[in-house]
């Protein structure tokens, strides 16, 4: 039994009935708004998925609870609210696959662990393949994934169309006819807000301070060059260890400590349709056409496209990027023409030179980064677990060892270009 259970209000049928009998007046706040202290043992910048998860495993696995999570906006309002919630492990490299297999596994147990319903739905992802080079690449991935216990299996075009009946385009006369599919049964979707709120409630119960509306403006270095703390809009906060978990703004922050990183920030698009009756029960990924979607529990099609090419710190989307994605989608799913699109948005995220994440202590002693999370939603549990291990023990967790900054120093890239929407 983990210790945070003692002072956390449990959510279950009994408590729901009990609160119902008491007119729901007994629910307590899920987390506090504590006063900002001037010193902590660890500061985590960013109350998104990776920041909250890192704080959670620091507390749970290593007993480090004198931690502040500083958030510029509101908790879970950054990229964890802006992604398309796909959890999968179909990567290419020996270094990557075990990490994502672990993360998918952790997601499946997280609802019980956090006592917060993540509505995890392990519904399988199916790739719609339209070119032979892509089919060869996916089959190559399958061989490596087999080694690490992830699942990938090729299916025929007929089987693909049986599994995804809405796929009526891409026939023999199309510019890119559908030639087959790949099935990844480990993949699933869940509820992004619940992931943020579940971790936040748990770390608050263990004594971690979450400070929203507390923008970090500058990293402060001591005389000897090591990290000393951060400057925030609410004053100076000191700590010997600072974790930067801010996605697209990683370089903006690290440059205030004179640190340059192999990252660039780009904008990625998503949009959702009006809710319709159940039509597609898997996550559909069309790598050759550059879009993917799944149907939410509410019935909305949640659709993602390719990134805007140039660097961007914007959170809206360019109209032509949106139109290109819709055009590609309609060529394979012509019946979607009648769907009304309800919302569209973008997020800015950083991608590393080799398209793999970076989790490491930097050249500034005490300054840790978790960055380059292109498709980082699926990696939240394993990312938090392994980074917390590094912060607490000073040694990289075996699963994250390939993702250190020093790989660039040795030009030992973990090349994952092509396994994400970065294409």
């Amino acid at each position, binding site marked *: 039994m983990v210790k945070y259970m003692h002072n956390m209000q449990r959510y279950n049928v009994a408590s729901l009935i009990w609160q119902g009998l008491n007119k729901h007046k007994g629910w307590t706040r899920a987390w506090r708004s504590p006063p900002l202290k001037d010193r902590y043992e660890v500061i985590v910048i960013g109350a998104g998925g990776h920041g909250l998860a890192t704080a959670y495993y620091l507390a749970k696995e290593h007993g480090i609870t004198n931690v502040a999570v500083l958030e510029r906006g509101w908790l879970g309002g950054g990229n964890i609210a802006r992604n398309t919630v796909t959890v999968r492990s179909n990567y290419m490299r020996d270094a990557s696959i075990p990490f994502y297999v672990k993360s998918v596994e952790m997601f499946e147990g997280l609802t019980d662990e956090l006592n917060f319903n993540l509505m995890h739905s392990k519904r399988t992802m199916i790739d719609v393949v339209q070119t032979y080079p892509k089919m060869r690449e996916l089959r190559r991935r399958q061989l490596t994934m087999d080694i690490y216990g992830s699942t990938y299996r090729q299916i025929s075009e007929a089987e693909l169309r049986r599994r995804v009946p809405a796929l009526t385009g891409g026939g023999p006369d199309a510019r890119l006819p559908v030639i087959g599919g790949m099935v990844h049964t480990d993949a699933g979707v869940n509820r992004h807000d619940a992931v943020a709120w579940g971790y936040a409630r748990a770390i608050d119960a263990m004594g971690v301070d979450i400070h929203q509306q507390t923008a970090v403006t500058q990293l402060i270095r001591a005389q000897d060059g090591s990290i000393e703390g951060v400057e925030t809009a609410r004053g100076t906060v000191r700590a010997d260890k600072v974790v930067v978990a801010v996605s697209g*703004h990683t*370089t*903006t922050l690290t440059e205030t400590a004179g640190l*340059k*990183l*192999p*990252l*660039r*920030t780009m904008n990625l698009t998503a949009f959702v349709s009006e809710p319709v009756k159940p039509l597609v029960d898997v996550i559909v990924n069309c790598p050759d056409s550059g879009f993917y979607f799944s149907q939410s529990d509410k019935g909305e099609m949640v659709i993602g496209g390719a990134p805007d*090419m*140039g*660097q*961007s*710190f*914007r959170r809206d989307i*360019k*109209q*032509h990027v949106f139109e290109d994605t819709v055009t590609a989608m309609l060529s394979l799913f012509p019946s979607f023409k009648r769907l009304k699109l309800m919302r569209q948005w973008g997020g800015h995220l*950083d991608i590393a*030179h080799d398209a793999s994440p970076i989790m490491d202590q930097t050249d500034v002693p005490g300054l840790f980064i978790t960055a380059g999370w292109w498709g980082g939603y699926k990696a939240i549990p394993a990312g938090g677990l392994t980074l917390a291990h590094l912060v607490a023990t000073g040694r990289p967790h075996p699963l994250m060892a390939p993702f250190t900054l020093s790989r*660039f*120093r040795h*030009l030992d890239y973990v090349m994952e270009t092509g396994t994400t929407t970065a294409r």
Partner: protein
Amino acid sequence: MLLIPCPFCGPRNESEFAFGGPVKPDRPDPNATSDADWVAHLTQVPNPLGPVQERWWHVRGCGTWLTIWRDTRTHDIVEGPADAG
């Protein structure tokens, strides 16, 4: 959609252009530069919150390459191409 000022064709839609990436410093001589500088050259690009210098190719137009300064916060083209070719 950006409206990119082509020195030959005037302001044209971004969809006529191919993105050429941010401008990097000149490639150093690998034999005459330190390992750290060589790695930095290979792996790092400027990633400013603000104007970034980048190359575009007017591939569906006149075919020229040009360089602009574009603000990564607003997409405003803050400095048009002084070059062409």
